[in-house]
């Protein structure tokens, strides 16, 4: 028997072009498989391309050969080489009448061409013809190609035929026609907008496969416009109900769940329809409750449905009983050994936490386990959850964790994301300014090149402006701590450029402000930075400007400035720099060193980075000069208009002064001479209120920051922070009340003691009671979740008890799948089925569906969906009488069981060896020792 089967299979494969392909192709596959390096593989493929190029040009290539060449082309393109020289042959093959060749042609063009390719025009006609074919397989092949090859312009060419096919007698064709229409809708919604009612009609198709396929476009349509589909809520609910009641043909069962993929799609749709809609939420609540009871949580697919239910419940209006059921399902997920389920559990928790924030608390240890799991995916998901549940009481722990993780990974993409999250959380919830600066330092140090430059500007502004409104003492303390931390960090090798810019700026502004550090010490450090990062001009620019400020402050305070030799050489080097910006800065610095204290103080005032600058548009500071000139005999200035005698009453004066119309050379009017002001000592160095070059010095940066304050997205939310920052009296009455309001976990379920401790001293209040749980972990849990200690330990003990119980029940249940594992509904949880059923039973949901279908579909006749399904069920079983299939298909209960028994029987390996031998006979040596089978399939 086994032998017969093998022979049958060989025959079948031969005729399908399996092993029937020529030795050449097998050799190609084999040699590529054995290639030791990418270069060797490339060489083989290139020679293959040469061969194919030659062969394809030969006249009268037999069709069979041609088909193989096309497959070879597809193969080499999959390996990443250009096969465009053969595209035209693939296009030609679609014109062939032979089904096999046509399908091969379509396969190749769908893989080769994009919808805007020039060759598509040659295919459209063929597609049109094939859509009209009597052979439904030809139609299917054409529909397949449509999905990939038709663009917006060619949709009208095939649209009428596709619409016609929606009523084709074969369900396979109807299914694909719906999908093609859906594809059109995605590509160009306007082209099919008048056909959308077809999707509604097809929802009532008597084939469940077609109905299931219709859910895909409907899902898209509903997510675009929920309100036009509210009328379908009850029909979706009744379909879901029928599916769960196993009214569909047996063939749709999968691992003993009835049509799970359809259930999932329906739940997704219901989630969309039910969000924010009380009525719809109520309609679906009963079936959701039923699902929780019916789902077999021992299989993967059962859990998929459970997860989808949780998602749906988190979207619709909250229903306490359903929430309870969802929370229960989540706790099962989290306690599972499977990482996949834990992942789903964390995800579900993240969704539910928005609705009922206290749900996280009972799972705190599970969450922490996930956080410490070696699985990166799980870890990231958990960080996402933590990010969602951050509040001022746990921000320190969470951000610390995030930063530790950020340091440990190499993936720049995720590093950027987590860095920006850290910054966001720190800005939003920072308990103290010292902590904030510390966190920012860490973020900059480890991910400096990845964070947005605005974050750096924000930090500089924060240090400059301080936190408290009039608490200068705190501000200077903060600055000192920033300076100290930067001086420590500055000698670390390879700091990110952005961080160095911040460091240089802060050291320049505040390095000597406190008097703790001498100017020469700071300037030495700054020189070191400029030397160490000599290739980075921005950093050098910042460093030089910082030097300038340091010296300016020194001069202004009347001390004598000793320029360190290394600074001197740095300046000289920069004077000859290729960068004009650096040159400019160096010259300015040199000029500044030669000035006296008063002038310097005017140029660079102390700690004035945040002062607003006033632009003197009238240039009034020149008045004295003008007065002098007039007194010594010069003519007063007359504007051009006055000179030309054109006294127009235009609003010329209100225009901006430097806006010169392009057609003529004009000069703005100066102010009329006023009584003279005594001229200043060095007029040429008086700060010109339009500093054009150095973008970093005081005035420009403050203006840029001012403008950023309005425009930037990443900015400090100072409004909520002011109350907390800068006030050491954190637990004062006002601040304490505000924090407790923010902590949502201390409301109903816990005593007031929990509220008090949650914000003030969560760590110390906790006393470990369970010795088997790592106290470290418990402390972490306490600081993360901040609940009261007594309730936490209670929950922990109950959870651990649950764990052991689950271990005994679940382990044996997972392996033999045909044993129907009874779903054990927790007795107290899901009593919502019965009472609600009695209330709703007065109206028949199927009657409702009937009415709906009558109104939406004119073809009538088909009314009761489940009746139709039960009709089709016997048909489905009778048609599948293929010899190979029938052997396998009777394992309808548990497919997995059949495979397992096969693997254990033994002919499995024998078959593999036979297959191996077969290949060897063909002159092909398999690449690996033995074509390893899917031993672990389903096992």
């Amino acid at each position: 028997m086994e032998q017969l089967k093998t022979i049958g299979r060989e025959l079948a494969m031969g005729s399908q072009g399996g092993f029937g392909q020529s030795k050449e192709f097998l050799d190609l596959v084999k040699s590529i498989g054995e290639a030791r390096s990418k270069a060797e593989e490339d060489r083989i493929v290139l020679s293959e391309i040469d061969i194919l190029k030659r062969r394809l040009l030969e006249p009268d290539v037999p069709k069979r050969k041609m088909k193989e060449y096309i497959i070879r082309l597809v193969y080499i393109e999959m390996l990443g080489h250009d096969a465009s020289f053969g595209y035209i042959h693939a296009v030609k093959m679609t014109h062939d009448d032979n089904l096999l060749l046509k399908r091969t042609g379509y396969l190749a063009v769908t893989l080769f061409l994009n919808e805007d390719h020039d060759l598509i025009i040659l295919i459209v006609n063929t597609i049109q013809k094939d859509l009209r074919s009597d052979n439904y397989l030809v139609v299917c092949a054409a529909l397949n190609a449509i999905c990939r090859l038709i663009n917006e312009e060619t949709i009208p060419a095939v649209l009428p035929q596709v619409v016609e096919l929606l009523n084709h007698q074969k369900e396979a064709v109807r299914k694909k026609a719906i999908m093609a229409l859906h594809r059109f809708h995605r590509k160009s919604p306007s082209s099919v907008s008048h056909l959308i009612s077809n999707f509604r009609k097809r929802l009532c198709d008597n084939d469940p496969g077609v109905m299931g396929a219709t859910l895909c476009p409907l899902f898209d349509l509903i997510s675009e416009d929920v309100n036009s589909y509210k009328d379908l809520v009850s029909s979706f609910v009744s379909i879901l109900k029928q599916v769960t009641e196993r009214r569909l043909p047996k063939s749709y069962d999968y691992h003993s769940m009835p049509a799970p993929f359809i259930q999932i799609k329906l739940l997704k749709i219901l989630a969309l329809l039910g969000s924010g809609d009380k009525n719809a939420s109520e309609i679906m609540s009963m079936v959701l409750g039923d699902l929780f009871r019916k789902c077999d949580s021992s299989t993967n697919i059962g859990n998929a449905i459970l997860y989808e239910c949780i998602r749906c419940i988190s979207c619709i209006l909250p229903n306490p009983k359903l929430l309870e059921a969802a929370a229960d399902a989540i706790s099962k997920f989290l306690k599972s050994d499977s990482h996949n389920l834990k992942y789903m559990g964390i995800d579900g928790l993240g969704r539910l936490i928005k609705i009922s924030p206290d749900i996280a608390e009972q799972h705190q240890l599970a969450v922490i386990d996930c956080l410490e799991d070696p699985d990166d995916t799980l870890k990231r998901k958990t960080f996402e959850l933590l990010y969602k549940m951050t509040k001022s009481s746990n921000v320190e722990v969470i951000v610390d964790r995030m930063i530790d993780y950020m340091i440990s990974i190499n993936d720049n993409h995720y590093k950027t994301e987590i860095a920006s999250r850290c910054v966001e959380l720190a800005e939003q919830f920072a308990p103290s300014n010292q902590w904030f600066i510390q966190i920012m330092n860490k973020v900059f140090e480890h991910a400096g090149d990845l964070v947005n430059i605005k974050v750096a500007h924000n930090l500089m502004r924060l240090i400059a402006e301080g936190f408290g409104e009039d608490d200068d003492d705190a501000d200077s303390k903060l600055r000192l701590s920033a300076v100290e931390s930067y001086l420590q960090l500055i000698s670390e090798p390879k700091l990110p450029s952005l961080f160095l810019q911040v460091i240089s700026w802060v050291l320049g502004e505040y390095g000597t402000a406190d008097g703790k550090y001498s100017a020469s010490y700071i300037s030495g450090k700054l020189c070191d930075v400029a030397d160490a990062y000599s290739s980075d001009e921005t950093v050098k620019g910042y460093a030089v400007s910082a030097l300038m400020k340091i010296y300016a402050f020194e001069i202004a305070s009347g001390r004598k400035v000793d320029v360190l030799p290394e600074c001197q050489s740095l300046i000289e080097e920069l004077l000859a720099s290729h960068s004009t910006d650096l040159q400019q800065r160096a010259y300015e610095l040199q000029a500044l060193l030669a000035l006296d204290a008063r002038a310097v103080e005017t140029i660079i005032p102390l700690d004035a980075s945040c002062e607003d600058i006033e632009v003197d548009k009238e240039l009034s500071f020149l008045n004295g000069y003008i007065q002098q000139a007039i007194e010594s005999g010069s003519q007063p200035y007359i504007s051009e208009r006055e000179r030309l005698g054109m006294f127009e009453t235009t609003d010329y004066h209100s225009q901006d002064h430097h806006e010169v119309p392009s057609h003529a050379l004009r000069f703005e009017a100066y102010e009329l001479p006023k009584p003279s002001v005594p001229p200043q000592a060095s007029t040429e160095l008086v700060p010109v209120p339009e500093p054009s070059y150095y973008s970093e010095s005081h005035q420009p940066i403050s203006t840029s920051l001012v403008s950023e304050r309005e425009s930037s997205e990443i900015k400090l939310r100072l409004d909520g922070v002011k109350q907390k920052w800068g006030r050491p009296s954190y637990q004062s009455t006002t601040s304490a009340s505000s924090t407790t309001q923010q902590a949502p976990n201390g409301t109903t379920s816990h005593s007031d003691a929990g509220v008090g401790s949650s914000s003030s001293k969560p760590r110390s209040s906790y006393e470990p009671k369970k010795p088997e749980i790592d106290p470290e972990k418990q402390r972490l849990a306490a600081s993360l979740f901040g609940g009261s200690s007594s309730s936490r330990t209670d929950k922990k003990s109950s959870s651990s008890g649950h764990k052991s119980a689950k271990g005994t029940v679940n382990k044996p249940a997972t392996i033999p799948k045909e044993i129907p594992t009874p779903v054990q509904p927790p007795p107290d949880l899901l009593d919502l089925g019965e009472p609600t059923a009695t209330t709703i039973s007065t109206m028949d949901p199927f009657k409702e569906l009937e009415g709906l279908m009558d109104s939406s579909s004119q073809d009538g006749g088909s009314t009761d969906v489940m009746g139709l399904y039960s009709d089709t069920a016997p048909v489905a079983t009778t048609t599948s009488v293929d010899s190979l299939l029938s052997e396998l298909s009777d394992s309808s209960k548990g497919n997995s069981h059949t495979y397992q028994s096969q693997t254990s029987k033994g002919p499995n390996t024998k078959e593999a060896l036979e297959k191996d031998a077969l290949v060897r006979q063909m002159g092909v040596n398999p690449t690996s020792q033995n074509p390893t089978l899917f031993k672990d399939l389903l096992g």
Partner: protein
Amino acid sequence: MIKAVMMMNTQGKPRLAKFYDYMPVEKQQELIRGVFSVLSSRPENVSNFLEIDSLFGVDSRLVYKHYATLYFVLVFDGSENELAMLDLIQVLVETLDKCFSNVCELDIVFNYSKMHAVLDEIVFGGQVLETSSAEVMKAVEEISKLEAASNSISLVPKSVSGWRGR
């Protein structure tokens, strides 16, 4: 929507790759390499899910399953359920297993067009079309039968039929 289906062996050689939005060949290769480098660095006994925004853009998830020498990979967006996608891989593998009775890597390499036929019955234009493995089998068998009918007379190469006669 499903963005891509890939099969690759444990050495990173692609065995089948299908992208449901057009990608130039170079981009495809880049993605396949990227996916493989992520997969090969995953330890045993961890979850089968990955978030790979870095390769496929915002809100991209990936589900993979490792069978003997092959990785089966599905890439999709937020409108699909991860666990369900994992089972879709299972459906695909079950179907292939029925097709080839005990499928192995060689089957996939040598039956390239049939692989695509099976896949096209399950995923169509990026949407899940059919999830009943029996239905898929029925469709594929019908195609094969018709192909064989139109094919057997003219196309079976002499050398192979002679060899099979033994």
